[in-house]
């Protein structure tokens, strides 16, 4: 049985198949669809030609535009630097002590410094640099371990503290647990606590801990517990404690001292950012002139 080439109702061609009297139309694809399809193919080929698209024997095809996301980045970073160029070069050209005297430069530095502080320092020193008792010092007060002038702060941030960097601030309090008896440790711990208690002013030198302190501790912490910045030894005659001010805390520090470690940031941040951070920290409240 011959199947009609054309369907009498629609006038379109049939496939020429017939199953139990049912035939199938080969309705052509609408021309708008074919146009869009061919245009898409064209765009795809164009795209492959313009942009990096396929592996070749010697690497990959780089595209006729020579575009790369890494190249874009170089331009983006350069544009960002250029927008801040005046301020950034002024930051580096001005001696660090003189930055704050320039009102505009100080504003630029503290704004940038605050942002960098949030990303790099806040996890340890706390948002707003309030410190974390028992671990990380506050930077908003005027109680400094290593020094609170802007040059001191700049150095601390660049090289860190016990960071392993060759120029890092470094010192180690001896572990007295192996050097003096438990009794002596207890006595000297009580003496340390008395240093910040004004009611013991007259009697404190008679305490059994006093001579132990004079022999073992005064070289770093000072005869009256005023601290020693050359060693980063904290003041012991105030109420600000790095590792806690209870008898137990102090005893623990004497037996096995915890030595705080802060990473060096020269390897991570550029000099401009470190200067901004220095200005930010210095202007938080406790900065020394």
């Amino acid at each position, binding site marked *: 049985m011959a199947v009609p080439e054309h369907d009498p109702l629609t006038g379109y061609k049939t496939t020429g198949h017939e199953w*139990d009297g049912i035939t199938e139309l080969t309705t052509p694809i609408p021309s708008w669809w074919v146009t869009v399809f061919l245009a898409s193919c064209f765009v795809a080929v164009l795209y492959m030609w313009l942009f990096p698209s396929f592996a070749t024997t010697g690497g990959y095809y780089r595209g006729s535009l020579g575009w790369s996301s890494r190249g874009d980045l170089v331009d983006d970073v350069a544009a960002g630097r250029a927008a801040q160029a005046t301020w950034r070069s002024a930051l580096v050209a001005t001696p660090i002590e003189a930055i704050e005297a320039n009102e505009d430069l100080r504003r630029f530095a503290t704004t940038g410094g605050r942002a960098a502080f949030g990303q790099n320092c806040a996890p340890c020193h706390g948002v707003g640099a309030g410190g*974390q008792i028992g671990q990380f010092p506050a930077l908003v007060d005027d109680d400094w371990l290593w020094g609170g002038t802007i040059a001191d702060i700049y150095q601390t941030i660049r090289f860190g503290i016990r960071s392993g960097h060759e120029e890092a601030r470094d010192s180690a309090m001896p572990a007295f647990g192996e050097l003096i008896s438990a009794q002596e440790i207890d006595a000297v711990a009580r003496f340390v606590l008395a240093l910040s208690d004004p009611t013991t002013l007259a009697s404190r030198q008679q305490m059994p801990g006093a001579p132990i302190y004079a022999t073992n501790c005064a070289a770093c912490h000072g005869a009256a517990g005023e601290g020693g910045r050359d060693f980063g030894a904290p003041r012991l005659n105030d109420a600000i404690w790095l590792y806690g001010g209870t008898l137990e805390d102090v005893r623990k520090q004497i037996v096995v001292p915890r030595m705080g470690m802060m990473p060096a940031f020269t390897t991570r941040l550029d000099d401009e950012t470190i200067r901004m951070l220095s200005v930010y920290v210095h202007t938080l409240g406790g900065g020394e002139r």
Partner: protein
Amino acid sequence: MASNQTEPKGHAIIERSTTLLFVLTLFVILIGGLVEIVPLFKVQETVRPVPGMRRYTPLEQIGRNVYTREGCYTCHSQQIRPFRDEVERYGHYSVAAESMYDHPFLWGSKRTGPDLARVGAKYSNAWHVAHMIDPRSVVPVSIMPAYAFLMNKPVDPEQFGAHMEALRKVGVPYTQEMVDRAADDIRAQASGEDADAMLERYPKAKLGDFDGQPDRLTEMDALIAYLQVLGTLAELPPIDTKVEARP
């Protein structure tokens, strides 16, 4: 069932011959296969080597396994993308060579927490310990889970050589010496003692007690040893070096 009298034309030729249909189908699939597979053979040439990269030390690799097991990659990526905001925050964008010893790689695709590709040397060991035991103790707003139990999970240095052997089978080029000395290297890194031979095998490895428990070797030691090495090995040119001028 009726058949057409006329000779088949066009696609009807293919439709009516099983063999032809099979051969042509195979041909079309092969094109797709080649496009996907050929680049794999060229990986060696595509990954540009970077000075400084080395295999993970056994202790770091144990830490890496803990990282994988605990699913840290579900919240942390290890992949800095080449965008200005990312490089300003995290540092140089990640390059392929930095993952060349990763089996499996842990790039991740979700950032509930920050990217960790360059977290090495950003914090002290003491900070990591405090943060892993209770993230809220150092970052009050953190939503990261606590992993305090790692402080009590011992690591057995003796068993790890076999694991390195297995890694070697999937493509990490550990030498026989590295496999044989695994236990010694783990102890040397975690104690900092007699570490010269180990440092020769794995330059720039961080040494010492990581978890603040010098008398014990725990998974916390291993995890922190791993975190502290992330992003510290590759020696990359400054970010604004022109692409063409890169090695």
